[in-house]
């Protein structure tokens, strides 16, 4: 608020996707140089009045973000910057007199022409443990050699002997040369820990795969490398996806406004007066 003051224009921010099931927007979000494999790219609009927050055209607001996502997918930009697939847009209003903060996140997800379906298994039922271990170290090696967020999604195949080979999305055609379509597998660094729901960003990736590579089916490893605070990939999923239909040239339909805790499409509100109101702070001060 100190820096933006009354500026009510749309600004670019970033966020980190945190396991499990969390997106974190904090002070670092205004630093555009965020470099991590689990980054999320977003926009923020802070309104100056509660009326503006309330009356602003919500459909137009998310539509702008969804259309930008579609451009990022069709232009190929999202191939090397996966944070664009995990995108969000955020509308806020800060009531600085009452220390109440209104906010509403939208996570645009493009809808496929026909429903994509998937069969979910546990990774450990499909791949043997030595392969999972090799996959884990191959992913970590690729990540440490890369500074850009282009490792949220990686290609993976089994090589000669018992080796596991990992590749970048930009190497798609060359990487799959001589590989049967049924064997094509993508590794998604999955922030979700739900047994049958991968992280949200996978939806936009599948739209990218559909649009760019005309994929009809794909295996996805939802790679979950943290379990109870330890490096442990045993909760990872293996999903066989069917991607029927064809995408046109225009931006598909989309969804994405976050629902509130009672499941309604509505903004949220936090009251930080207990943390910020000087008179109330004085009560707890010793």
């Amino acid at each position: 608020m100190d820096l933006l003051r009354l500026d009510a224009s749309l600004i670019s921010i970033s966020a980190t996707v945190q396991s499990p099931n969390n997106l974190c927007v904090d002070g670092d979000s205004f630093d555009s140089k965020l470099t991590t494999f689990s980054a999320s790219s977003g926009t923020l609009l802070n309104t100056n009045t509660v009326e503006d927050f309330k009356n602003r055209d919500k459909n137009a607001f998310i539509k702008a973000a969804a259309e930008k996502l579609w451009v990022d997918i069709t232009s190929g930009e999202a191939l090397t910057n996966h944070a664009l697939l995990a995108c969000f847009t955020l509308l806020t209003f800060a009531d600085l007199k009452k220390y109440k903060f209104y906010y509403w996140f939208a996570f645009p997800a493009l809808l496929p022409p026909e429903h994509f379906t998937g069969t979910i298994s546990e990774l450990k039922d499909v791949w043997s443990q030595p392969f999972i271990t090799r996959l884990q170290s191959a992913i970590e090696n690729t990540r440490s050699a890369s500074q850009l967020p282009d490792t949220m999604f990686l290609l993976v195949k089994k090589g000669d002997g018992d080796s596991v080979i990992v590749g970048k999305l930009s190497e798609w055609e060359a990487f799959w040369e001589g590989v049967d379509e049924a064997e094509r597998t993508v590794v998604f660094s999955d922030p979700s820990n739900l047994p049958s729901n991968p992280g949200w960003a996978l939806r936009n990736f599948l739209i990218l795969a559909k649009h760019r590579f005309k994929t009809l089916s794909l295996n996805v490893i939802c790679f979950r490398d943290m379990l109870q605070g330890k490096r442990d990939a045993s909760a990872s999923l293996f999903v066989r996806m069917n991607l029927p239909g064809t995408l046109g040239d225009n931006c598909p339909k989309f969804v994405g406004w976050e629902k509130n805790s009672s499941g309604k499409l509505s903004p949220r509100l936090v009251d930080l007066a207990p943390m910020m109101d000087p008179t109330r702070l004085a009560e707890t001060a010793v």
Partner: protein
Amino acid sequence: EWREYLNPLLRESRFKETGVLTPEEFVLAGDFLVYKCPTWAWSKGLPNKRKDFLPADKQYLITRNVPCLKRIAALEYKDGDEEEVEMDSAEDDDAWVATHKNRVIASGREAEDIADMDEADLSADQQKSLTANLAHLSIAKKEEPAPAGEEVEDLEDIPDMDEELEIVDMEEEEDPAAMSNTAGADDKFVRTRTYDMSITYDKYYQTPRVFLFGYDENRNPLTPVQIFQDISQDHAKKTVTIESHPHESLSLASIHPCKHGNVMKRLIDQMVESGKEELRVDQYLLLFLKFMSSVLPTMEYDYTGDGF
């Protein structure tokens, strides 16, 4: 903050003698914690609050989303606990971590053996300083646990979107791919309170210091009164206060570090006495977190296991 400013920087390692850390040792210990427990990460904090004695990208440690399943009130107390509290607080302020040492969390998790330190002897100096603290303690003892009325008052604070703000005519495309929002019978995921917990370096006390930001089951921030429900009653009103975070523009619940050095020194000595390997300085924070679990017994942030 002015005290921090005036206090000279600790340069020589004294952690074995006094339980305190130099900034360099704090960074070493933090690096080891991040390596051992990937839920912890270094944070840069706000640029205008940067402390020059710490690396720019390693200002403080943070772990988010720490589940806190139960309130302290749900802990089971064994017979004799109360007696112990009286005895300890009457003659040994330092032993405050030892109270309720037999306490077990209702889930059956074993009490950490770290809490086992009531037989420590005191030097004459310590005795003197502790006697000086007694007056303060006796005032604190009179405080009753939060009356039920306070709870009710608090409920009014739960933020509710003003009705006029509710956007009723919002509609979106049908989305069969999204997870259903209604909790079905197969919903195994219990929503719990969670905490963002950060560890900063306190230059005045030369020890790590814990700050807490709590969320309720719906991710709304907890009020200080609600946070006190998750802090052991021996400490809630005495050693926990709402203070501004040294690296962020937030006022958070913090556990006052005035006794941290002494307690850490005791724990380190105890490890030596019990014939375990001597604590390396980079393991300091692993031990520190075990000590914190006596203050925050229901927060499940400690994934370090034995770790040593």
